[in-house]
């Protein structure tokens, strides 16, 4: 009996540990340094492979986030971009392996948009209208998704949408209008 109870508690513990490992492994956030360089901050709650590869085994590190030409504007492209999150820019329901995402972060130049990004000229600074649209992009309804685009020479091409991070799940981000059936 004691053995059974012990086993029960052990498996509970393991279960919880595993769950713990599945949640809050790492956090990705938009950040700007003191001298206003655009960055992506990665914070790991435990030493995982992610942190090994991205952060050289550190728990916190910073990756260069590109900026983009003519993005601080109300030009046609930006007008479209900001209305398209959650409508024409959506996640594919299949989760992407974290390793593929890490590979992208290390090897490609990217630009990442959080709901609080500095480029939004269309909503008032107090409104969370954009955040609401961003939420739609995450199948798990994560509150602060970050949309990643591949970028070259600081020229944003909306068709280069790649990934959206929803907590520590990553999904593929596609330029594909999500319409009612």
């Amino acid at each position, binding site marked *: 009996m004691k053995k059974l109870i012990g086993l029960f508690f052990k498996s509970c513990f393991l279960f919880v540990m595993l769950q713990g490992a599945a949640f809050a492994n790492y956090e990705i956030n938009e*950040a700007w340094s003191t001298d206003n360089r655009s960055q992506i901050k990665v914070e790991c709650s435990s030493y995982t492979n992610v942190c090994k590869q991205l952060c050289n085994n550190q728990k916190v590190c910073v990756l260069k986030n590109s900026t983009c030409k003519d993005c601080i504007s109300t030009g046609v492209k930006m007008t479209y971009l900001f209305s398209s999150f959650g409508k024409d820019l959506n996640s594919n329901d299949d989760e992407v392996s974290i390793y593929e995402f890490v590979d992208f972060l290390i090897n490609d130049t990217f630009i990442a948009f959080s709901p609080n990004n500095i480029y939004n000229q269309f909503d008032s600074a107090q409104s969370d209208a954009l955040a609401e649209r961003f939420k739609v992009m995450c199948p798990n309804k994560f509150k602060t998704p970050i949309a990643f685009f591949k970028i070259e020479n600081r020229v944003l091409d909306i068709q280069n949408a790649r990934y959206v991070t929803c907590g520590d799940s990553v999904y593929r981000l596609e330029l594909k209008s999500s319409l*009612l059936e």
Partner: protein
Amino acid sequence: MKVLLSLILLLGVLPSVYANEARLNTDLHFTNRAQCALDSKKPTENILVLLSNMDVGRSLYRLAKLKGERDTAEFTKLGLNKYRYTVLTLLDVIHQKIITNKLPLLNADLTQATNLSKYKELSQRCANTSKCPDLDDYLASIWAKSNEKNPKFGDVDNFTQNNFLNLEDKNVNKKLNCSYMKQFTPLEAHLYGTKPDAGLLEQIAKATTEIDSYYSECHDYSVQESLKVSTYEMSLNVNNSKRFDAVGFDYWNTLKIYFSWAFRNAPEAAQMAFPFDEVFSSVLIEDSLFMVPNGCKSLVNPKCDPATLNQNSIRMFAKHDFKQEAASLDFFRAVPEGSANKMLEDQFTNVNADILNFSQFETADAWTDSFRQNFSETRLTMRKKFVNSVNNLNLMSNNLKTNSIAASLNNYFKPVISMKEPGNIQLKSELYYLCAESTFLSSEELSYIRPKLEILGKMNTTDLMTSSINSKNLNEIFDYYKEIASSVNALCGSFDQSAVFDPSFEIDRTGFNRWYVDAVYEGKIMSMASLLRKEKLQTKKPLIAYSLYNNSKDIRDVICVDTVDCARTAIQSIVDIYGVVQYSELFLDIKNEISSASMLNPYAERTACKVYDPWFKTKASLFGFATDVAQGALAAVTPGVVYGNFDLQPGRVVSFNQLVKDGKITVDSKYEKQKVLSTVALDLGAISNVPCSISVTKSKEMDPSKMLGFRGVTIRTCKANEKNAVNVEVTNEMGEKVDKFKSGCLQCSLDFEHVTSVLSNAIPYGRTAFFMARAVIRLYKGLKDPVNVPRSWSVNPYLVKASFDSNGGKIPNDCVKKLSSGKSCMKNSCEENIVNAYREKGLYIDSLDTEQAWRGSAKVKLRGCKEASNVKVFYSKSENDGDSCSISAKNIVTKCANQEG
């Protein structure tokens, strides 16, 4: 030795030179309309620079919040001051490079021959885009060389000596003068009036004493109160340089192109902007920076093309009553007629009469802010309209095939078309709206807009833009729309309209879409169409909508509700796209260039288009223009409505109105005669009173068995002895030294043609395109307008002030002529001589007292000094000229009394 000493003394002891000194001594150039028109062809040396901080300000504020800055307002302000600093300093750096011949000029007009073959090739390749890495590389390599000691520009392109500014006067002051403008004042009087009079000169004199409260240092941000905008004046000291007259447009072109490139890419700009360089290099600076020639001269050589006309119409946004007048502006019409129309309607418009309403605003920044707000809000509305309309059609074309539309519509309207439900008013009305809207836009016989829309099927300037928003290009979108239109028109032509829309059926016009109501009823009816759409959604699931709609229930997430709505939305979208594309150079960011419209000179485009010719020796040129552009200026009337009696005499010269009076005009009994005739009269405008000859197409004799349909009015030029010509005598009003005058001949005809049957249609009588005909008539009226012989006047503010003081605080009337030719008008020649002697040495006098001149001494107080000094003068008495005095250079006191220099 003495000279050297005095030079050293001069340099060492000059009273502090105020920043505004140069401005006091710069002539104000007044012009009348004719001279202003001529000046439009010359490059300006003086510009206003309007800088908006809104876009970058919003981003800085968001950045402050993201970073968790304690004082977000302070952080934003810091960033904005850095932004102003970067813009102003960079302009200065580029100017210095050009004026010291370190940076070659890039031709503004590439339609002319140029030795810069590589630049020409790159510019053509990059004509419709701002994404051009090759051009960026070209500019980058030239810029890098400009920092070298002995640069070899030949490595980059075929630059020669002639490609550099190379001003004749090597000692010219190379500074780019820059002032921050607090107010528009009498010192900008050349923008408010033409010929100066005593009253204006007095205002100028008074303004000079307060000059420091009107202008301040460009980099003194503590004075620049508005965080939203700032207004600067910049000028070059080219001093009537012939070289500048020849290459000035190239100078400005080079400055603008390098600024656009350098602001984003030059290491110097990054240094100036640090630590905000990453932010600033992301700004679409051309949306926020405007250069305006300060007067009649131009920044860009005016051409008669749609780009110039559209860009110059930006001046409408500066009017203080913009918001009240907005509804009547062409930009906001459902189907804009284009800026050429406005120019033709108002050929002899005002100029130099505060046309931009500077005087309605307390400060220069208030004016700039009003302009900025009016313009950016409109621009954003247009951009959103473009994005939404393109997106709608794109999504429809991907999800709704046209063959299914025809079938679906047939099915939907079967109950009323088959007469099974003759009382179903709602369905009948929907069918009516659909057919009316579609026919108005696309009927081959009846639509005047249809040929205009065809342009959407032929343009490629928006291709990169549509692809950047993941859409098909406009040609493909237009093709899809045309398929929808054919399906709808086929449906509308498939049943007997007079049976379905029987006399008892009255249409509720509020159900038409907004564009239709604007185009047909001139906005006199409110459109409730959007409410009807919302009502449908209460019971129906939308046909095409974003999945977001399930939760949001927001109509903005719906593309279209059902097939009918899809068809009507497609039509609405194509109209909206057309409207924006008409003014694409103004609203769409296809090619990012700094706006340099001739805001203060509406004659820039009028002269370029020969609508106004200040030197006209004969007004035939105006006729030529009207005819060329109008191709006969056909003013068409919807057929099948208006008819002439069979006993009309072809060839008889009579006005339309007279024909009505004589009872020779009838109207299809389906319509209310009075209403139709008054509409026709409105449309024909003044032509309805102009005698035209009656012509009946394709027949010399009348056939009493046939009806005569009235097609409209044709106007063209003719030969003097042509039959039925309306001869317009034109005379040369220049008056001087012209031997002959030419006469012009204008022929207009009221066109009728035999028709075999009455064309019936259920479409209400709509407006048709008359503007060209109208333009010719106004032209005809304009012949009576008095000719302006080009005149200009020069006023030196400092000399006006000196004269004002000298004459006891006023400007006598007989001083006006002298002061208007850049001279002074002191109370006597003694004071005249003293003022001029000091001025030659670059010294400015605050007050002058020559009471004791007969004793050989005068009191002179220099600007900046607290007290006057005594100076030696040489007094002379002459019987002819009266008393006078003079002063020798060595006696000029250059330092303040009781003060170190």
